[in-house]
């Protein structure tokens, strides 16, 4: 049997923010929103569920959460029902795995749900649990548990090496918070000015509060199936998973493989693979959702995804080339900076926005978008995950 072509049919989200709801409640909300987005689909026909979440074991005291969620959304999986953990890229990993299973004929219709319940009544737990996301024996013991210090060191090096400015970092936040108005289900729908970002209270200089993604509760969901079934279930233009890649290096903050912290070798490796597999080049991408956990991240991603030259990410963003009407609109629904970042949910939220974009039904629409890209980095920059979607397979 030849490989089947795999499509994303639609997507949904729970409301993201500070939620008084459990992880299972939010997974159910996201799945309902997703089923509502594909009205011809009978949910009983969904034969597989992947649930992307890193912290449901620790913060919700729920391990083996996938069957619990299957029960709550009223499906009885027969192909696969399991949890996926790649921290910040968990949702994207779920989509890649579902694509592989469907392509190989091991599943027909899969729902990929992902998200986190990060706020708990004991607020200190939020900051304690973060330490589990790094090499805690060594880096954690030094007090680098929370991500901002690592990315602030990265920003310092980028500023020194390439002359990137605080204004350029801030421009990422201004753009993405403005784009956040396009996603009513994201954490924030409030634009911020350059002055506000520049003056936001220091977290780990040069990064201030508005350079950082917030801590967010929420879930997202997408449905994937093979091309023939997709044609049956939807009149919308088909959106194919064209190419994917995930590249991990053994590095944590120590033993970094690049020349310095701004040299994201593993992102370039993943990008090269994903472009090859999707048979496209960076110039072919019409719209992208990249991992703006911090403003500096998006700047380096523009470079190492090949949208601009190395070192030119700052001017690229500042001059509007990654905004609507620019060379490549990036984070058109607000990215992590506006939507928030419930780790396992992020890659799925990005996929949902790309599907809406390629089907011409996004709130902030990029006219004529045919090829879209999503990107996540995981943890303290240990892994990069890329998916490329297209209107053609």
């Amino acid at each position, binding site marked *: 049997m030849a490989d089947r072509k795999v499509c994303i049919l639609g997507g949904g989200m729970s409301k993201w923010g500070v939620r008084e709801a459990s992880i299972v409640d939010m997974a159910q909300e996201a799945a309902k929103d997703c089923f509502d987005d594909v009205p011809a689909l009978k949910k009983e026909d969904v034969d597989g569920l992947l649930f992307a979440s890193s912290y449901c074991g620790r913060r919700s005291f729920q391990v083996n959460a996938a069957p619990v969620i299957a029960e709550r959304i009223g499906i009885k999986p027969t192909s696969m029902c399991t949890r996926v953990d790649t921290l910040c890229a968990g949702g994207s990993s779920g989509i890649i795995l579902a694509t592989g299973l469907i392509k190989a004929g091991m599943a027909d219709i899969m729902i990929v749900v992902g998200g986190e319940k990060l706020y708990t009544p004991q607020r*200190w*737990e939020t*900051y*304690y649990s*973060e*330490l589990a996301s790094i*090499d*805690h*024996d*060594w*880096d*954690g*013991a*030094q*007090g*680098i*548990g*929370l991500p*901002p*210090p690592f990315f*602030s*060191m*990265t920003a*310092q*090096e980028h500023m*020194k090496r390439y002359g990137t400015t605080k204004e350029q970092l801030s421009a990422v936040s201004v753009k993405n918070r403005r784009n956040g108005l396009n996603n009513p289900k994201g954490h924030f729908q409030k634009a911020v000015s350059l002055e506000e970002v520049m003056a936001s209270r*220091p*977290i*780990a*200089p040069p990064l201030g509060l508005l350079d950082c993604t917030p801590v967010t509760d929420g879930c997202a969901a997408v449905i994937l199936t093979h091309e023939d079934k997709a044609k049956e279930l939807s009149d919308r233009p088909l959106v194919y998973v064209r190419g994917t890649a995930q590249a991990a290096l*053994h590095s944590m*903050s*120590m*033993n*970094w493989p690049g020349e*310095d*912290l701004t040299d994201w070798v593993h992102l370039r490796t993943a990008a090269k693979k994903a472009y090859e597999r999707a048979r496209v080049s960076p110039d072919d991408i019409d719209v992208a959702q990249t991992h703006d956990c911090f403003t500096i991240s998006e700047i380096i991603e523009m470079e190492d995804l090949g949208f601009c030259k190395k070192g030119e990410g700052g001017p690229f963003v500042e001059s509007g080339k990654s905004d609507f009407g620019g060379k490549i609109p990036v984070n058109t629904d607000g990215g992590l900076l506006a939507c928030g970042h419930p780790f396992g949910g992020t890659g799925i939220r990005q996929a949902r926005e790309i599907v809406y974009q390629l089907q011409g039904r996004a709130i902030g629409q990029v006219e004529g978008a045919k090829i879209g890209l999503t990107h996540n980095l995981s943890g303290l920059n240990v892994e990069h995950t890329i998916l490329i979607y297209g209107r053609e397979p």
Partner: protein
Amino acid sequence: MGFENFGTVSFTTEAKAAEFITYLEQGKVMATRCPKCGVSFFPPKADCPSCLSGEVEWFEVKGKGKLATYTIVNYGPSGFENDAPYILALGEFEGGIQIMSRLSKDIAPSDIKAGMSLVVSSLKRPDGRISYEFKKG
């Protein structure tokens, strides 16, 4: 002893690289090297990730390193609240050894410059816990 007394907060008590702590108690910051592959590791690894052999050698991280980058942590994670603000830095040492550690409180923030010379030394904290830190080289 193992890792239970290491760093401001430690998370693992049992690890095969526990000899690191014994050396640290003697004032030595040690790394390991795989004699077969010739690769050095910090944090020290008890088994080589390249050939997976357990025959690694311990050696002391000596000499002067260079500060690559640093940041001031204003909000410490849970357990680190009383330490903040503190300065985390990345130091590059001979043989491709990279170490992420705190800068000694003896160094005034105004004196910190990328490229400055560093040494890494063991640190006995006032609360009796043990760690390592960077001093001016």
